């Protein structure tokens, strides 16, 4: 199964991955509209870029084989898809208890800014290559089978 990996020595902390993520998950598919209009309505990047002095790294859901989020979900809203290996989130079923946010030790889940829901990476279901990896200008992000 392919996953998104990061070589942090190549990460320059530019945040283009976050913007690409925002755009691909927007209604408009337009960065400017996604940023200025949809973001205030609750749209959020699934990627997180950490920066600390000269260090930086872009992280997101690892789609773990044995995810702590799935284990913690009291509503059956987070499940593993055996066919694709993705960790799938169903916002309809979610009750917003935030147990997954607490349980994921990789910090890959965020609270949705406006509602009692979460946001997490869906590994860009419809794309061959996730948008964040496509956007990375220094090939710090890789989409590979390891």
């Amino acid at each position, binding site marked *: 199964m392919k996953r998104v990996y990061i070589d942090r020595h190549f990460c320059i902390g530019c945040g283009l991955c976050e913007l690409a993520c925002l755009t691909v998950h927007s209604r408009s598919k337009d960065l400017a509209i996604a940023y200025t209009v949809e973001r205030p309505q609750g749209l959020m990047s699934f990627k997180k870029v*950490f920066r*600390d002095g000269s260090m930086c790294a872009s992280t997101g859901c690892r789609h773990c084989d044995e995810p702590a989020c799935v284990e*913690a979900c009291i509503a*059956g809203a987070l499940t593993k898809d055996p066919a694709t290996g993705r960790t799938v989130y169903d916002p309809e079923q979610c009750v917003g208890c*935030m147990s997954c*946010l*607490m349980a994921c*030790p990789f*910090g890959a889940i965020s609270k949705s800014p406006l509602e009692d829901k979460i946001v997490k990476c869906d590994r860009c279901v419809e794309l061959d290559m996730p948008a964040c990896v496509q956007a990375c200008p220094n090939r710090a992000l890789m989409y590979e089978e*390891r």
Partner: protein
Amino acid sequence: MQYIIIGNGVAAVAAVEGIREKDRTGAIRIISEEPYPTYGRPLISYYLAGKIDRDRLWYRPESFYKDHGVELSLGVRVASLDPKARTVACADGSSYSYDKLLLATGGRPTEIDLPGAGGEGVYRFTTLSDAEALLKVVDKAKKAVVVGAGLIALKSAEALLMRKLDVTMVVRSRIMRNYFDEEAGGLLLKHLEAKGLKFLQGATPKEITLDQKGRASKVETSQGDLSADIVIMAAGVSPEATLAKAAGLAVNRGVVVDEFLATSDPDIYAAGDCTEATDMITGELEVLPIWPKAYNQGLYAGRNMAGGKTAHPGGLPMNSINYYGLPTMSVGIVNPPEGQGFEVERMVDEEGERYRKLVIKNGRLAGFVLIGDIEKSGLFTSFVKFGFPVTEDIREKLKRGEPSVLLWPEEFFEETWNPRPTAQPIA
């Protein structure tokens, strides 16, 4: 191979998933007392409050049992086990043989010995049936009294408050005592009072007065009487270990299991709230009635029943509960005993309803509590779960509420985000 699972909660469901990872053909039967397909037990408070409909309670799709080849005996109580003959006998007269048995019998409400506690209008709050019974009366009822101060007490009180009842909690000492210190408990109390919940603190319940028809009419306490149409008794849960005890299995407070989730009988496993198992941090046998642990134990028990031999890493105490709009979380050791080398860092912002407590021992984060600001909780959890060193510099950042993957040891970071490719077979 014949597997039998007693119980149909999250531990049972996870066990089915674990068995089926390894054994596609063995026969599985679930026997459980509750008549429903598996549901999210914690969701009963959301349901009672009217936040979700009945169709959102179900933890797995309707086809789950069929898809996993599970035969169901629902609404059936197992009356006894015979470990020698490897059979279970049910209260309806049926009996079944097993090769491997799983006890996933959960917990029972802890009963307080109180006159009148068996009367009409007195409820417990741990099952869907409890929620349905309450839903039948909430529209007509005006006053409710909740006896207890823990998670179940608070969540049921919150739900009734949302149903516009006048709700008073009878609290012996403090709310959420097992998880919150005085400051955190006080913050939560203030928040709930502002929402309209009433508290009678330092009050010992004495009796539930029943009227001539046997219906609860008031709760007498050491601090005075409270009239009530509904009384909820919520003193927590204790492991349901009746069957195990009667069958002669090792039982302390819960059914004792080893790291493979086997009981003292090698063909009988146990998982979830009914167990007493090794805690990830203390290394001691603990009863830990939380959902994530029940799932995880069930999964490992299932795999091991089906021939696997994977040791369970132990349960990590964790709870994420939203109380009337105020998010709270606690992970690991949060109320450390005095004089055992624990250090505590506390950040309180009463105005902003924010609170952060870090418990540190031997340069490691042993646990934390967050109220209000919970966004970074997962990365705090990483420090507890993986036991990363907390240097002075890291400690300062954690105190400021800024955990980060960049504070992890470098090798761990690489293993997590950039592992070396495993050797691929040459096609």
